[in-house]
């Protein structure tokens, strides 16, 4: 397969992961202080989002789920407008109607977001169908969790996408948890990718905490979907290190399992690697962290200043 993928500067990937982490930590702190509603954070899963999204083209469309901050920020969403949305403000991407759970950003091609687990899987074939029927460029990337893969819709979606030759890249962020149930208690197979095989869909399971590995696998996968016009499933193994939503004491989480994944924190992995191979200095790393912190401060200022929606807009946009 052609490997002429665009060169992506690893320090940019690091910066995006730092931005996502800082954004999520601002939400954690804000919700602990009672100023921001708690969300399903993507802490620990940054490499999955950043690796996949950086393999996409501008015309590609994204569907995602309740744990979407990483996907949105990696796609270039403004952290201020995201935070405003989480806080229910008019300046949010959806005017405060979504909150954290259904954020769609049309201008970035983040088309549909479902907090109904599996909703994004149900809609993905249709978004791809409109590409193929209207001759529009771009493939469809559908992010979902291992929990969603246990919904019937996952299986219906894969069957239809395979049957109708639809250009969907299914990306399962397998973070080992389905709310308060471990995947071992819920899945008849070890991997979500095992299921793809029965629909004749090529699939790969990869280390989701190594952003460069995710990027390389996603570049290969997107290329394959683009050239074949057919679906592909990428299973990205990672870990939800802060629990299901804020706050979550994770008393039910196996300490050893959590510790093992924390030791492989995706940001630390890449940062250490870049410093070790000499492509980044420790002070360069610190500068990135400062830059990101400044953006999050500005985001907070924007969100805090954004007004709440006026109650007379309560029923706006129900109908077209």
């Amino acid at each position, binding site marked *: 397969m052609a490997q002429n993928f665009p060169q992506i500067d690893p320090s940019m990937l690091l910066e995006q992961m730092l931005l996502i982490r800082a954004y999520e930590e601002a939400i954690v702190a804000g919700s602990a202080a009672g100023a921001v509603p708690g969300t399903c954070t993507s802490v620990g899963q940054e490499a999955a989002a950043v690796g996949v999204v950086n393999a996409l083209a501008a015309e590609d469309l994204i569907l995602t789920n309740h744990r979407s901050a990483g996907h949105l920020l990696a796609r270039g969403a403004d952290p201020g407008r995201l935070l405003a949305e989480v806080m229910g403000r008019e300046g949010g991407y959806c005017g405060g109607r979504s909150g954290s759970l259904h954020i769609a950003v049309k201008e970035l091609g983040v*088309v549909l977001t479902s907090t*109904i687990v599996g*909703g994004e899987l*149900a*809609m993905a*074939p249709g978004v791809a169908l409109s590409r193929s029927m209207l001759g529009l460029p771009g493939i469809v990337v559908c992010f979902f969790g291992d929990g969603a893969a246990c919904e019937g819709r996952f299986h219906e979606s894969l069957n239809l996408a395979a049957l109708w030759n639809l250009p969907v890249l299914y990306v399962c962020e397998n973070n080992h948890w389905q709310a308060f149930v471990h995947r071992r208690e819920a899945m008849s197979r070890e991997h979500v990718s095992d299921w793809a095989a029965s629909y004749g869909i090529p699939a790969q399971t990869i280390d989701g905490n190594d952003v460069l590995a995710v990027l390389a696998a996603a570049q290969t996968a997107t290329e394959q979907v683009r050239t074949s016009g057919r679906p592909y499933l990428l299973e990205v193994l990672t870990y939800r290190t802060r629990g299901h939503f804020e706050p979550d004491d994770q008393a039910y989480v196996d300490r050893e399992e959590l510790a093992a994944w924390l030791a492989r924190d995706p940001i630390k992995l890449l940062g250490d690697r870049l410093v070790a191979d000499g492509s980044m200095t420790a002070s360069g790393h610190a500068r990135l962290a400062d830059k990101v912190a400044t953006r999050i401060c500005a985001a907070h200022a924007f969100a805090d200043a954004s007004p709440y929606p006026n109650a007379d807009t309560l029923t706006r*946009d129900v109908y077209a």
Partner: protein
Amino acid sequence: MPILTLYDAVGAALTEEMRRDRTVMAFGEGIATKRHELVSEFGALRVRNTPLAEGIIAGTAVGAAATGLRPVIDLLFAPFLCYAMDELVNSAGKLRYMSGGQWSFPLVTLAMTGAGWGVGAQHNHNVEAWFVHSPGLKVVMPSTPADAKGLLKAAIRDDNPVLFFLDIGLLHEPGEVPDTEATIPLGTAAVRREGHDVTLVSYGKTVHNCLRAADELAAAGVSAEVVDLRSLKPLDMPTVLASVAKTGRLVVVHEANRLCGVGAEIAAVVAEEAFASLKAPIARLGGPDAPVAASYPLEQAFVPQAAAIAAAAERLCRRQYA
């Protein structure tokens, strides 16, 4: 004017709209088999059979509608909508609003329902009110072939998700259907018969029972006006209120369960907004709170029949209400 059955009027609407707009496509469980003339004219990509998987059919329509197509999906019988409830209610109905108006979902879902074939409760269940109760959706149920064509054309052009119910008992009834571009705006009721003593409001096949009841009432000296709602959402309350203002009496009739049915909403709005014009209490006739039996006499007993409608109307007219 050509004579078509309601089933063929649906086909005529699909044909005309697919000719007019290349983004219209149709898929569902057997639609390409049963309406093969559509496949011949528009090709196997625009008219498709699907797997038996109502959820993904509806979800695919939702995704396609958001991103440039106007899908019409055929989910066969209304109870099967339960498998597609999430996609229709949670996605199609809500994601426009939740996204702050970024998306719209121009899609039409066809489903058959009602007495006539003795198919029993897992094929015949008038669930219209469920969708009326869900924000973001529109709901249509025609009573004539001409309306089926005109309303379906309007539904396909509408930028909102529309549930389009086909009454099984009317499916093969013939009627005059214009072969012109006649669309019927959603949300407009039709006065099927004018009268001044009592208003009979209905939709679907019980409109015809109301018309038969009006004949019986006329013989007894009572003049009944019959209003066919056609759309349940939007609901044309101005037409209902104008009729009640004239007659002062209202009987609401439908085959669906009376409990929390569309008739309850109509009765409530009339009580709120036209109380002063009422000369008698409002009467509601609807199906019982029971699954529909397959046995023919039981299935018929489920449906408000003309004699019962006439009797209810006559009671309102004859009794004195102090």
